[in-house]
């Protein structure tokens, strides 16, 4: 069974919500990411989204763009991203890792080679931002065959039939984009997100993760009241930016995530 499925099954039994931090691989350095992955788990992460840096991250706001540029300047490659997952797997056999990135680096490696290498490294799911379902039939099939989940985005503007497509092709969880904008934007409307989730549940049995624009513990807890998971990326990268060394980045990440973990577990006061 895929680790993502195990994780959501366990959390459901415990009546808890998943905390999903996102970090860009190689930001600010390969060593930092290496140390960060287990630190995120220590701080309460249930699943980790690891960003594959790309030169033209069209769906990302300034924070993740900047992180990608920094990582690429360090010479980060997709092969090295997979090495990071392999190293992490030696220490942690249970926490699922989802790679998140853009199509071109994956295609440059070759879809088949990438899927094989990702499975061997211990990756559990792949979210390719610029592969909407209609362009991803064959890639999704290949991932399923290897036991990996193709994870798709849904947006506030998506028509209801899009959710059916995602339910048909996708696995693991649905990543619901909480706003019409880029990652890290600041205009998340909690009430609107909460209102959309029941309709989504009617169309898919997959767990629902909400991301893009969740910036603090309070919002995370509010979203967690209806969703199965919250994703936090840009704010986390901002927290570790400028850390002098890997240890400090880990300390800052843990300090940032712990209150969010706590808020998710305690929920919001009615």
């Amino acid at each position, binding site marked *: 069974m895929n680790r993502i499925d195990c994780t959501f099954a366990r959390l459901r039994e415990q009546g808890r919500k998943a905390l999903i931090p996102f970090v860009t691989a190689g930001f600010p350095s390969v060593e930092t990411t290496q140390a960060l992955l287990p630190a995120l788990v220590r701080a309460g992460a249930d699943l980790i989204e690891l960003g594959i840096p*790309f*030169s*033209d*991250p*069209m*769906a990302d*706001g*300034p924070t993740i*763009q900047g992180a990608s*540029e920094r990582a*690429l300047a360090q010479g980060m*490659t*997709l*092969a090295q991203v997979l090495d990071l997952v392999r190293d992490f797997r030696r220490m942690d056999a249970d926490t699922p890792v989802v790679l998140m990135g*853009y*199509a*071109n*680096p*994956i*295609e*440059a*490696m070759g879809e088949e080679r990438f899927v094989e290498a990702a499975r061997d490294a211990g990756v559990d799911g792949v979210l390719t*931002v*610029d*592969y*909407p379902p*209609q*362009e991803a039939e064959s890639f999704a099939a290949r991932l399923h065959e290897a036991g990996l989940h193709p994870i*798709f*985005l*849904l*947006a506030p*503007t*998506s*028509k209801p039939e*899009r959710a059916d497509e995602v339910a048909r092709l996708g696995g693991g969880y649905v990543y619901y*984009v909480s706003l*019409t*904008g*880029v990652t890290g*934007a600041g205009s998340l409307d909690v009430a609107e997100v909460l209102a959309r989730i029941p309709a989504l549940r009617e169309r898919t049995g997959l767990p629902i993760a909400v991301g893009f624009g969740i910036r603090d513990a309070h919002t995370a807890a509010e979203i967690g009241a209806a969703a199965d998971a919250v994703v936090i990326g840009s704010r986390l990268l901002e927290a570790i930016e400028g850390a002098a060394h890997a240890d400090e980045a880990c300390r800052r990440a843990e300090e940032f995530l712990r209150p969010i973990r706590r808020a998710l577990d305690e929920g919001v006061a009615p």
Partner: protein
Amino acid sequence: MDYHYPDARGHFGPYGGVYVAETLVPALEALAQAYEEAKRDASFRAEFEDELKHYVGRPSPIYHAKRWSETLGGAQIYLKREDLNHTGAHKINNCIGQALLARRMGKPRVIAETGAGQHGVATATVAARYGMRCVVYMGEEDVRRQAANVYRMKLLGAEVVPVSSGSRTLKDALNEAMRDWVTNVHDTFYILGTVAGPHPYPEMVRDFQSVIGKECLWQMPELIGRQPDYVIACVGGGSNAIGIFYPYLEHESVRLIGVEAAGEGIETGRHAATLVAGRPGVLHGNRTYLLQDEDGQIRETHSISAGLDYPGVGPEHALLKDLGRAEYVAVTDEEALAAFHALCRYEGIIPALESSHALAYAAKLAPSLPRETVLLVNLSGRGDKDMHTVAERSGIRW
């Protein structure tokens, strides 16, 4: 030839498509639907044609560059004078079409990306013409290279936003425009300037620009009693080239040649010759040829001409290359500059540096061909915007 592209989902054979984040999919579907309805609507087509005639000044003439042809001593060169359009380039054709569509869709705000500034100026122009708010994204490097066009856009009431991410050129401006669109999609129409991007842009921009080739189809017989032997156009994203090629696709005796920017030379790596030296991948919402490194990161490009300085190319050009219906070549900065100066001196026409690439290839080709051979070159824009660049290259203070 039996040629019906794109298919219903925007694919040109293996190229094209809709490779965007889900947040943009609904906007693109709405746009594709609005465009389908508009192009079947006779009143939309009539208004487009009326604007092209009275506002843009179409049809643009075809001019026989006799003195230059004599000097080259071979084939006769004819120029399709898109440089004579209002705003000085072919870009306005597409902007009129998309602005009319924006108005039809009830969007009061338009945005655009620009490289050389020609598309930005054309967008600012139509925004003023139709009373729309306008924001133009332009790479910082291009803002520096094309200061005159930046000022023109501001005069026309547009806000110009310099983009400082990535290589600070056209590709980054396109990323930023897409980010604006995804954020403001409720009231904003993205006027994309070239035949790249996600479906329906490559098809829609081609259709609006096809007016260029359609006019040539009746103008050439009037001038010489037949169609030309070659049609030559420069290719960055490829909108002026598709505009003149598309109506000629079924005229199979006419050779179609797209000219890319070889910059300082293909072998130096400092160029923008995507079809000549790239390989297929996914960028900016479509699958096409790209200049990329072995890890799939998009490479920084170089060309003396900001409008050709782009690491992708329209997906229909990728298909035409694979089909062999069009051929793609590249000329260097130096060759383009030489053609620029030649046209100034022999014909009294100052061409855009982009168009100078097509001229340079015609100048290479002409001497080897008989005098009866006719080359039709798309003179896609005028060179007023390039005065600074050319003067700088010639070591002249200006």
